[in-house]
């Protein structure tokens, strides 16, 4: 090369650049189409449920007990039961999961014990839900003597969702810069004072992410609760954690497979499914709303 080429040739597109641009456009289209395909199942599921189940989703459907072998009436006991089960799972999983995450993020050194705990979390997350159900029968219904109850089912759901809470919380704790901790330690603060005053106030949104994920799974799971606390039919809504209860997810399974609905009641599973999805969305909306308030302003 000698000297600077004239401007018009400097910025002219070469054949090589032309090809690179072509390839880049092709890949962009490929990734865009793939991403758009994700919308399809969501639209199809919600659309089908709304069309088939929407018209029958009345106030009476939500507030009445099922009658006439599940075919008539509503789903009130199942709706309330799902709220009990989910609240119970949250009450167990969130404190335990947050405490474990604080230990792993703030106290644990990189040693054999920590690695054992971490691999336990990974493995726990990989256990199929039906196996959790059998564990729940053995541990909570039998060994701890909770009986077939909301308490046993909630604990089973909690064990299943613990890894989710731990991982989400740990991520958010570790997103708080280490410099903040060192600044606090150098003032003579203990580890706990540092966690309480500096780290935790800035991790709320991550903990809520864990809550959202627990809610979504706990509301929808069927296998872990069907042996441990949920029933085909219960006379009334639960009075205590030791009662059995109906639940939306199990109710959906039952009306879809266990009850002969006939042509005129074919809409019933769709209405139940639509309710199930709306419950998840509503609970998530609350958590997301809180999280947005927490994240509302930039902290650093």
């Amino acid at each position, binding site marked *: 090369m000698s000297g600077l080429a004239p401007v018009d040739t400097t910025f002219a597109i070469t054949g090589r650049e032309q090809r690179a641009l072509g390839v880049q456009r092709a890949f962009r289209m490929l990734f865009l189409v793939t991403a758009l395909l994700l919308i399809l199942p969501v639209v199809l599921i919600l659309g089908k449920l709304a069309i088939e189940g929407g018209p029958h989703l009345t106030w009476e459907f939500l507030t009445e007990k099922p009658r006439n072998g599940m075919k008539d009436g509503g789903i009130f006991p199942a709706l309330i039961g799902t709220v009990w089960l989910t609240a119970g799972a949250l009450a167990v999983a969130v404190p335990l999961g947050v405490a474990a995450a604080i230990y792993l993020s703030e106290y644990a*050194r*990189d040693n054999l014990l920590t690695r054992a705990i971490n691999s336990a979390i990974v493995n726990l997350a990989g256990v199929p839900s039906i196996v959790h159900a059998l564990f729940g029968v053995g541990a909570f219904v039998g060994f701890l003597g909770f009986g077939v109850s909301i308490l046993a089912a909630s604990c089973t759901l909690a064990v299943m969702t613990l890894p989710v809470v731990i991982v989400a919380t740990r991520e958010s704790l570790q997103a708080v810069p280490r*410099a*903040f*901790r*060192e*600044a*606090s*330690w*150098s*003032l*003579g*603060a*203990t580890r*706990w*004072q540092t966690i*309480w*005053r*500096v780290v935790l*106030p*800035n991790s709320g949104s991550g903990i809520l992410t864990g809550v959202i994920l627990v809610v979504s799974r706990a509301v929808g799971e069927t296998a872990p609760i069907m042996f441990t606390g949920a029933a085909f039919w219960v006379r009334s809504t639960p009075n205590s954690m030791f009662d059995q209860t109906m639940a939306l997810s199990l109710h959906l399974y039952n009306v879809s497979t266990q009850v002969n609905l006939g042509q005129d009641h074919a809409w019933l599973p769709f209405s139940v499914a639509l309710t199930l999805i709306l419950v998840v969305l509503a609970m998530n909306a609350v958590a997301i709303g809180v999280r947005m308030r927490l994240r509302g*302003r*930039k*902290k*650093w």
Partner: protein
Amino acid sequence: MVSEPTAATAAAPAPAPAPATATAPLVQVRGLGIRYGNRAVLQGVDLDVRQHEIFGIVGPANAGKTSFLRALNRMDEFTPGMKVDGAITFGGRDLRTIKNLYALRRRIGVVFPLPVGLPLSIYDNVALAPRLAGIGKRAELDQIVERCLRRAALWDEVKDRLTSLGSLLSGGQQQRLTIARALSQDPVLLLLDEFSIAVDPVTTMRIEEMLKELRQELTIVLVTNLVQQARRLADRTAFFLGGRCVEVDRTETLFTSAADQRTTDYLEGRFG
């Protein structure tokens, strides 16, 4: 808030580390070595920091200056793999024998090279250490916060927005907030690690003036890459190079007639 036993003891006025005589050094370092795993970053350091002096430490990168400061307030406890050998005494007490490290760290203020405004309000940033020490009265806290912010030359800029987040101040303001926070615990010893790295020259000068005044009340160890800053401020200066303390002397002596040729070369900008 859990009340720690250490916080209760700190509520009483902290007795100054009693020197045997008025001239006894505040910090004595003997045969200090620091390793991270197998990598030695500092070895064979012997030096004294006297009461009410500004003790400068200069030297090129990787000389071990920051590790030295971390050893002084026992931050090795929080640094995986960091090992400290040799003896450091603080007010006559061997650091290795101090069980209550929280009390030690409360006596030693630290300012890091990069500003750390905690994601708390400006007021809470400065009030954090006094609160940890058990001071709860609003009037008393107000007084501490104002005095420390004034000393750090930040009060006039933030006095009308003490409730806004300290972590959203500009870099230079955050650095002065860090200094105010370090002063808020009434330290006996103040460790400054390149405090002027994120501060504009005018503010740097104001802080330097403040440091000279503070010498009446406390002792300062100043790590700096700006050799002229050491010359302006430090009574005595140590030159660190490659993990060793090459020499320690009165600052003027070091700058005019250093014993070691490497010191002169560094101070005159021939390397580093």
